[in-house]
């Protein structure tokens, strides 16, 4: 099939970007979206042009590196799917596809479709540590974890940190990401010791990074390639409320973050 691509091109963080039009000819239905871009890039390079810069790593939907808005929807709108796992069979011959980077103050564009998502790393850092007792290897079931809690923690841990939630939110809010990380550890006994401090610190760094606030529109959940649930945002709000009631400070000890 033949497609028309309108791709955001931006030289570096400081330059102005704009949409440029490219023709993608002979695209196979079995190609992934990124493979289609690879082909376009090869042609661009052959013609002496500058290839379109985009992020990717695993290309199997587990690392969260690939990230782009396709026709105004983060990751292209196929439920539970990253761009690298989105195949061209979901498009039709003659389609025009608009491709843009994530847009948020906290995710500045580095080049073309590549953004700096370091704010997520800083939020994770702010989460601090999980207490682990030293000594001999603990017995297998010394710390019982119920099935429901284990499942819940696993569901939250599925977040790959791609940033689609921020990209899709009308407020560029990172609540889904942060709440998945907060809920993951708060659901397990290992993570409970530091739960108040963790939620306060992560929310503080989230706010400082310039993300917006949650207005419960549900866009984040709809585009999340790992289908992280809005439940976790409620859980984080609950954690935060508990931390307020216990009058915890954002930093209770040196170290950790």
């Amino acid at each position, binding site marked *: 099939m033949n497609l028309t691509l309108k791709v955001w091109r931006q030289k570096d963080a400081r330059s102005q970007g704009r949409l440029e039009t490219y023709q993608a000819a002979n695209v196979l239905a079995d190609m992934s979206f990124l493979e289609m871009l690879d082909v376009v890039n090869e042609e661009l390079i052959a013609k002496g042009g500058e290839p379109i810069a985009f992020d990717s790593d695993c290309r199997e939907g587990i690392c969260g590196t690939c990230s782009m808005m396709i026709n105004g929807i983060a990751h292209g709108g196929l439920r539970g799917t990253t761009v690298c796992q989105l195949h061209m069979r979901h498009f039709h011959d003659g389609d025009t596809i608009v491709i843009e980077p994530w847009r948020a103050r906290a995710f500045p564009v580095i080049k073309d479709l590549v953004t700096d998502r370091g704010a997520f790393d800083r939020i994770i850092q702010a989460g601090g540590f999980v207490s682990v007792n030293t000594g001999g290897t603990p017995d297998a079931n010394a710390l019982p974890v119920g099935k429901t809690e284990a499942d819940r923690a696993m569901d939250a841990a599925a977040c790959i940190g791609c940033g689609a939630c921020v990209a899709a939110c009308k407020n560029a809010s990172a609540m889904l990401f942060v709440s998945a990380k907060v809920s993951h550890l708060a659901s397990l006994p290992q993570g409970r010791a530091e739960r108040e401090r963790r939620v306060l610190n992560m929310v503080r760094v989230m706010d400082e990074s310039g993300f917006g606030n949650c207005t419960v529109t549900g866009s984040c959940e709809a585009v999340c390639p790992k289908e992280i649930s809005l439940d976790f945002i409620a859980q984080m709000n609950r954690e935060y*409320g508990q931390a307020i009631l216990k009058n915890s400070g954002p930093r209770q000890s040196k170290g950790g973050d």
Partner: protein
Amino acid sequence: MNHAPRNLFCSSVGKKYLMAGTGAAMVLFVIGHMAGNLQMFLGPEAINRYGHFLQSNVELLWPVRLSLLAIISVHIWSAAKLTQENRAARPSAYEQWQPTAASYASRTMLMSGIIVGIFIVYHLLHYTVMVKAVNFAGTDFHSLTDPEHRHDIYRMVVIGFQQPLVSLFYIVGVGLLCLHLSHGMSAMFQSLGWKNRACGPCLDRAARWGAVVIFLGYVSIPISILLRLIQ
């Protein structure tokens, strides 16, 4: 050290708590106010006695009014702050954008909120302060008294809503309020952390139906007056 005020007033999550808490309080007021208004259908005696009861209890009236004012102020303050932060969070807009999954009501909370705010100011000038110039009926509402020398609220409301444009503005105002509530009444549970997958869809439906009921409850009065069912 007391960290709670800072966590509540300065953090994103804390401000959403304030939005939700003040919103919940106002929802209770909206429901109570509707129940009071519906006494219009019981005739002049019921509503005039009720009005007199509220007006004569100054010790109750003013604390309630002042608390409502404080609640509204916090709601508006946090809305302004949150909106400002949200706008700043995406300095450059998308060339193409599809609002995935987000309901119309959820995307227009600011606009519906602002128009409802303007409507409430008018509504207060109209029926509470009773500014003659804004009722467009040419009647001084202060001068209406019933045979028992109480303020004749019944006649005031009938005369007030017999002005079609006034009624129309009222219906639009209440309509937008209910659009606002159709999202807000379920989102507040999320903001306070009381929503989950099991009760979430039910809360969403309850909020939408609740908004419809509130809308019908309020607009039944001007519509009945315009149709001369109440006169």
